[in-house]
């Protein structure tokens, strides 16, 4: 599974518990409009660390936090690249 599809499926899982009208998960969707609040994003980051073995937010110094889903995915894709 690609990083993108892993992230999308994890968001689906976390949103699934919240049960409300939810927007489609497109690249330009603002993360905080995805149906995840900041706690949900915190949970997402923790689960992605378990699934992908990556925690780009504590392991590097990201100066501008990702705003859209696309930017969020890019942070993980960059962290996965061999340095």
């Amino acid at each position, binding site marked *: 599974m690609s990083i993108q599809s892993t992230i999308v499926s994890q968001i689906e899982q976390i949103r699934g518990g919240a049960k409300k009208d939810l927007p489609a998960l497109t690249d330009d969707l603002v993360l905080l409009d995805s149906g995840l609040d*900041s*706690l949900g994003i915190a949970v997402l980051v*923790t689960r992605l660390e378990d699934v992908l073995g990556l925690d780009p937010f504590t392991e590097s110094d990201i100066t501008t936090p990702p705003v859209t889903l696309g930017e969020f995915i890019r942070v993980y894709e960059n962290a996965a690249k061999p340095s």
Partner: protein
Amino acid sequence: MKMQPNRPESLRSWLTSHDASRRFLWGAQAGACLGDLRHGSSLGGRRQELAGRSVLVAAHDQLAASLALIELDGVARRMVICPPDIGAGQLPSVMAKSGVDAVVTDHEFGGDLLSVSATPAITQCVDQESEHLPTEWVLLSSGTSGAPKMILHNLASLTAPIDLSKNQSTDIIWGTFYDIRRYGGMQIFLRALLGTGSMILSSAGEPVADHLVRLSRHGVTHLTGTPSHWRRALMSPQAHAIAPRYVRLSGEIPDQAILNSLQAAYPDAAIGHAFASTEAGVAFEVNDDLAGFPAEFLGVRGDVEMKIENDTLHIRSNRIAKRYLDGEHGVLADGQGFVDTGDVVELREGRYYFLGRKNGVINVGGMKVYPEEVEAVINRHPAVRMSMVRSRKNFITGALVCADVVLKEGSEAPDLNNEVLEICRQNLPPHKVPATIRCVAALEVAAAGKLVRPRA
């Protein structure tokens, strides 16, 4: 008013003034008849050498230590009671702080203090009687870090919770998963000695199944331990070898799931849980098969007064310890004599429930989560035997709640994660729902019978 039976002046005088010829303490290897103490000793006739001294009771063998405690109470000025797992590195400071000038031990101890051999057998010998001393009992309680807390009790404070009009049936066989050198085990030891029955001691390092077989062989009727002890026991096929009449939990918060499991495993047993700590002593017992305790327990009930301050249970009674022996652990009780137990409670429909330890709180984005309250919800899943909730660092909320779960023996739950999450979502606000759930084979239980929690 109810007549109070006489209270014991010392353990040995109590035992020798009652018929103890058919009463026993059984260790893992050997047993001893309490009646033999009338004309015998486990200290080889050297008890008088220890009169008036501050004695470190440092036997590995629990039976040897038990007999030494009985013999030295009323004789020594102070007994410093080492649990079996105390680190050798901690002993010198414990001994210095408690002014130890003699050692009772069953192994090579070193040093040039007066040393007397503790044995798990009572041999006939003549020992002079000495003047009665009100012996100080020093219990060591594993602190959260570093040096153990040294907590000063005496026979009166330790036995104050024991109703001498109860449990006087000669067929009572006490057992405990605790070591008797810890407060929870000590309570059972003293109940056994002040009653008319016998007792089966635990043994450090003994597999649970072997312990249960021993309990069964001696016909245990009254058995006690922490919820973790009990969960571990119920995981053993030998749990069905015993049929106790009385099952008691203390030392950790009992949730409804473990009370129900015990009820199912031992349908004929009365099941009770007690709230106690080494510092505060036994505060109350709950015998209605429900977790938590009724709100009317607050205020003054008999010898015990309880109040809630800052959501935390405070206790004042004749069972609380006198003081810490050293100053580094602060003051044991406040100016009014109340001990802050550090246990946070919440009132729901006329009943108080324990949420967890004040110092174990996990801070999720500024909101408090007590691991124990989440565990109590997770443990409602029928396939879950026990769980531990821990903190995990998170760059957004500072920390998140994560759970490790042990399944019941033979249980299968292919969709466990989602099922447990669903129970949590239905019963807890979102910040208390675990971010991740991990199935593990076992959780570590410390020598004191409590779950080993990682320090946040």
